[in-house]
């Protein structure tokens, strides 16, 4: 199904800087295309915000970028190897925070983070407690997560972002249930990530702009072929 366009350089990019390029992506849900022919590319330290009303396909796009959802057409392409500085392995490291956070209620925050560290094959790096401290939830680390408040749980989920040197952050409404302090902490983390050369793709109905130079926006309404029929 995938159209083979790997070799053609995409048009709207900063040529050899592009680390991640998406080419003529079309996503379909229940046989109705949500958006079609979406192309963009991102280089080091760039962040992209996806805009669109409820049900326009933001979550679907993010999950497609993560490889969970399969696109009907088009492809996501990583320029691996060209960026020696970031030391890419054969596959990019992706962090995804979605509507469901992937935090287990029975386990404590620490245990949850340890599990995530382990499945990402990184135990040597920064410790779970430090990650929790960065989101200021270290004081809750001994409670099973089901007994945390919604915002505390979201903070635990976001702490995962510090676990590893991820190449790409995919954040689907990361500010859900966060208070102002939480959002500030998140913006801090995001700033550091971008400075270190990472990429961020996020969507949020709240106006948290990361205030970064390469911030770009895509409005999914511009890529819709027909009126939504749900």
């Amino acid at each position: 199904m995938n159209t083979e366009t790997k070799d053609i350089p995409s048009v709207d990019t900063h040529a050899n800087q592009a680390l991640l390029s998406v080419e003529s992506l079309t996503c379909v849900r229940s046989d109705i295309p949500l958006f079609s022919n979406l192309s963009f590319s991102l280089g080091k330290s760039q962040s992209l915000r996806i805009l669109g009303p409820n049900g326009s396909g933001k979550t679907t796009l993010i999950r497609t970028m993560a490889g969970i959802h399969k696109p009907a057409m088009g492809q996501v392409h990583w320029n691996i190897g060209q960026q020696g500085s970031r030391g890419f392995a054969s596959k990019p490291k992706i962090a995804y925070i979605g509507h469901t956070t992937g935090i287990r209620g029975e386990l404590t925050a620490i245990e949850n983070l340890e599990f995530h560290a382990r499945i990402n094959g990184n135990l040597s790096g920064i410790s779970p407690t430090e990650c929790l401290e960065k989101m200021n939830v270290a004081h809750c680390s001994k409670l099973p997560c089901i007994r945390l408040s919604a915002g505390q749980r979201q903070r635990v989920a976001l702490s995962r972002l510090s676990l590893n040197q991820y190449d790409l952050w995919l954040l689907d409404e990361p500010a859900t249930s966060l208070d102002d302090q939480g959002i500030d902490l998140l913006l801090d983390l995001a700033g550091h990530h971008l400075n270190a050369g990472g990429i961020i793709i996020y969507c949020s109905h709240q106006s948290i702009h990361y205030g970064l130079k390469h911030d770009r926006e895509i409005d999914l309404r511009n890529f819709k072929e027909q009126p939504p029929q749900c």
Partner: protein
Amino acid sequence: MLIAIIKRDLRCVSHDLSGTIQPIGFFLIITSLFPLAVTPDPESLQDIAPGIIWISALLATLLALDTLFKEDFIDGTMDQMFIAASSLYVIALARIISHWLFSGLPLIVMSLVIAMMLHIPAHAIDALIVSLLLGTPTLSMVGSIGAALTVGLRYSGVLLTLITLPLYIPILIFGASCISADLVGLPWTGQAYLMGAMLVLSITLAPFATAAALRVNMS
């Protein structure tokens, strides 16, 4: 990855000793249902004992099957594992192993006690243990396919049983006949070899089928 998932499962279920004791109590109580419902007479009990043990094994497998992947699916853990591993095969295998650790293994541990309660003579214990060792992993393997197929559905208990039980019938037949052959002094290696063959077949195929089924259900 594999170890991480198994470790987490162990931790979720048994934060303390009581979690570990539960499956053992479970088998004791399940096996004691049969003498109560059928007959307390030692001789008839011995006749039906192989069937009882194998049906208990099936039961234990089924009861834990529904939540094998569902929890992970609902709370988003499956997404995380998939992104980290890019291979559903490892995830499937890990969950199968931890499923067996909680359903098959405790039964094998308990089988000596159960054998005594059901008046199975000492000379048949080896067939009992060998058949359980070969059969219960197969149950977990085959069951995981059904669990993966129904993972997207909420009320899947009955459907899951309906899909899985027909596939369990060969294991049930050979497992029970292994023990009953030994009870009456007949050779039981034939059945054991067949069970071994089924185990090998399911080890090679089931994790792939499970992974494929999981992939289908990930949207």
